[in-house]
């Protein structure tokens, strides 16, 4: 018990004294996860919108695959990406293995099905009268689609927040493709795993507290957007 308390005390010291190593790890985590989420949204939202609004071939199969992808084990995603990026793999010539770029790709692969699938569900749930109203007001097909997507914006944001929650907490994939190299690919989750293994609890606890705070903020954000989405779906 004494060592745990000492660990927490040391962790708080690291946080309040703005320890450079701690902040470097946090910033890299936010950069990797933020970029991955942005890419997952850029690709996932149009895919979700197309699946919800257009007659796409094999639509049911694609939706099932995306739903399966939402539960994709990070370690498996990391393993497959490793095989592609390793020197003998098809993308080995790019030299991406053990770089932040590889970690971004890994996290993007994990977030993409969540963003695409939840966006699809959100847009498909918009009352059809919204689209008809846009048509009667003179919208072009693109403007109609945008009106529907806009109506689903809060539920889409909730999906993006769920994607953020997934990538921020992820460790399995990025440790495989990132390698946990100090000062280069070491992020919050991989540092916690490593420092705990080494018995250095101060940094692990400090990062754990920050990760929990971020997770809490994501949950609050998720609830906020879900609540806005609920009030927004009833079209009079």
């Amino acid at each position, binding site marked *: 018990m004494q060592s745990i308390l000492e660990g927490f005390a040391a962790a708080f010291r690291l946080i309040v004294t703005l320890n450079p190593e701690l902040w470097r790890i946090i910033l890299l985590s936010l950069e990797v996860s933020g970029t991955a989420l942005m890419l997952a949204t850029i690709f996932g939202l149009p895919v979700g919108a197309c699946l919800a609004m257009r007659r796409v071939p094999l639509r049911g199969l694609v939706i099932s695959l995306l739903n399966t992808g939402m539960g994709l084990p990070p370690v498996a995603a990391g393993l497959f990406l490793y095989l592609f990026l390793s020197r003998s793999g098809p993308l080995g010539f790019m030299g991406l293995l053990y770089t932040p770029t590889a970690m971004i790709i890994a996290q993007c692969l994990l977030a993409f099905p969540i963003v695409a699938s939840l966006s699809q569900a959100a847009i498909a749930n918009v*009352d059809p*009268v*919204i689209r*008809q*109203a*846009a*048509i*009667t*007001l*003179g*919208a*072009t097909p693109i*403007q109609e689609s945008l*009106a529907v997507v*806009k*109506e689903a914006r809060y539920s889409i944001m909730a999906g993006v927040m769920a994607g953020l929650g997934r990538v921020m907490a992820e460790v399995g994939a990025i440790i495989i493709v990132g390698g946990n190299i100090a000062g280069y690919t070491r992020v919050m989750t991989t540092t916690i795993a490593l420092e705990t293994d080494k018995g250095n609890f101060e940094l692990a606890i400090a990062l754990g507290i920050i990760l929990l705070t971020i997770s809490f903020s994501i949950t609050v954000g998720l609830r906020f957007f879900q609540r806005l989405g609920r*009030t*927004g*779906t*009833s*079209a*009079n």
Partner: protein
Amino acid sequence: MGLELKILNVFKAYNGNPILRDCSFAFAQGCTYVLQGPNGSGKSTLLRALALLEQPDSGRVEYRDGGQILAADLELRRRITLVLPRTGIFNTTVFKNVAYGLKIRGITRAEIEARANDALLAVGLGHKKWQRALELSSGETKRLGIARAMVINPEVFMLDEPTANIDPANTAIIEGIILKLKQKRQATILMITHDPAQAQRLGDDLLFMQDGKIIPA
């Protein structure tokens, strides 16, 4: 010249169930038509076909301008409008709902502001312009739907049961708005109602629909 509207031998069925049967009529430009008839007689389907929301199975909806038949394209769709029975209010402010039709036409911000404000004042919602539209009452929502449609100055203005399920005060306001639109004679107005007295008050020509056909009353 304005838009002339005619339907010729229109037939429309849903799941093999005929709704419009050989429906034909020529609407005079600038007149106000009130459609009445029992539920399922095809009134809403007719308006949806006229608003180009539904494609007839056979027959045609014909819009003419200066004698020329117009293609059913975006340009024509932007000259007509239909206020749906469930208005389809966007989850944003009252003002942005009204501004939508103008914004998608690429109209300048200053003009949008002026026209949307005029439309909101006309329907008595000027004081609620920054309120969330989904927080409006049923009657206010109907009025917002009308403001959103009238701001785009349609040449054919269709309203599907604009006063259904709302209180007498809101009904009176909406009737007042329609009467003002009618007096301007800029648009051909087609509206559906189940209230014969309202039909008498508002219509230049009363039409009755039965079994998918229009019968002049």
